C-alpha cells in the first residue's frame, strides 16, 4: 500500500486513472489528490532547484535554494505618497479576495507597507476596493 503512490507517477501518471479500478481497493480518493500535487507543488520546485543550486553551489556552500532578493517597488520608484485613488495600482498588493498581502510576499519596505495599508483602507472606504469579494 505504501509503495504504490511512489511507483505510479514516474511510470505513467496519465495512465493511472483508467487503470485505477484494479488498485483502488482501499483508496478511492487517491488519484485526484496525487494529480493535484504533481501539477502544483512538485514541478516548479524541482525545476527551480538545479539552476540555483548548481552554479551557485561552489560559491555559496550548502545553500541549495537561491531566493531572489525582493526590493520594495515604491522605494525603487521613489514614491513619497501612495495615492488611494489609484485602485489599479493597489490591486497588485491584495489577495484575490481583497486581503492586504504581507510584506514578506511583496517585498515592500516597512514604511511603504504602512502607507500602502492606509491607502488600501481609504480606497475600501469609498468603494474603490473591496473589503471582501462576494462569491
Amino acid at each position, binding site marked *: 500500500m505504501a509503495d504504490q503512490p511512489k511507483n505510479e507517477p514516474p511510470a505513467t501518471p496519465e495512465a493511472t486513472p483508467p487503470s485505477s479500478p484494479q488498485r483502488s481497493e482501499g483508496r478511492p480518493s487517491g488519484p485526484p489528490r496525487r494529480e493535484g500535487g504533481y501539477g502544483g507543488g512538485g514541478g516548479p520546485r524541482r525545476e527551480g532547484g538545479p539552476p540555483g543550486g548548481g552554479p551557485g553551489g561552489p560559491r555559496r556552500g550548502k545553500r541549495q535554494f537561491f531566493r531572489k532578493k525582493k526590493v520594495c517597488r515604491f522605494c525603487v520608484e521613489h514614491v*513619497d505618497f501612495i495615492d488611494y485613488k489609484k485602485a489599479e495600482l493597489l490591486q497588485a498588493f491584495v489577495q484575490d479576495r481583497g486581503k492586504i498581502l504581507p510584506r514578506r510576499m511583496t517585498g515592500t519596505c516597512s514604511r511603504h507597507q504602512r502607507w500602502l495599508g492606509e491607502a488600501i483602507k481609504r480606497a475600501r472606504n469609498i468603494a474603490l476596493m473591496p473589503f471582501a469579494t462576494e462569491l
Partner: protein
Amino acid sequence: MEERLYDLIFICRPATPEEDVNKIVATLEHSATEHGGKVDKVERWGTRRLAYRVAKHREGFYVYMVVRGTQGDMIKELERRLKVADPVIKYQTIRLDEELKRQSKLARHRERRAGRRPRKPAATPQAPPAAEQASPAS
C-alpha cells in the same frame, strides 16, 4: 490658522440626473466659500462599478473635489450637506496637507542626498575581515 487641504469624494446614485449632481456641487462650493474655504478642483469620474454594494447599488456616480480651508467647521458643514442630500449614497473626506508636506520633505531630503553623493569616494575594503570572521565560526 494654517490652511488645510482636503480630498472630498462622494458617490451619487447611478440614476441621478446631471443637473442634480451639479446642484450638489454648487451647494458644496457655496458653503465652502461661506466658511472661508475654496474648492480647488472638481472632477466627475462618471459612473463606476462599486467594489461592494452600497445602498443596494452596484454602480455609482463618483465626484471628486479638492477643498482647501482654514476652519474645521467647513468640513463639518460639507459633510452635513452630503448626509442630507438624497442622491448621495457615500462620501469621504480626507485631510491631505500633512501627507503632502511629508512628501515634499522627503523629496527635498532625497535631492540633497543625491547632490552630496558624488563627492563621497567609494571605500569598500571589507572583504578580508569578513572572511576571517567567518572561518573560526565554522
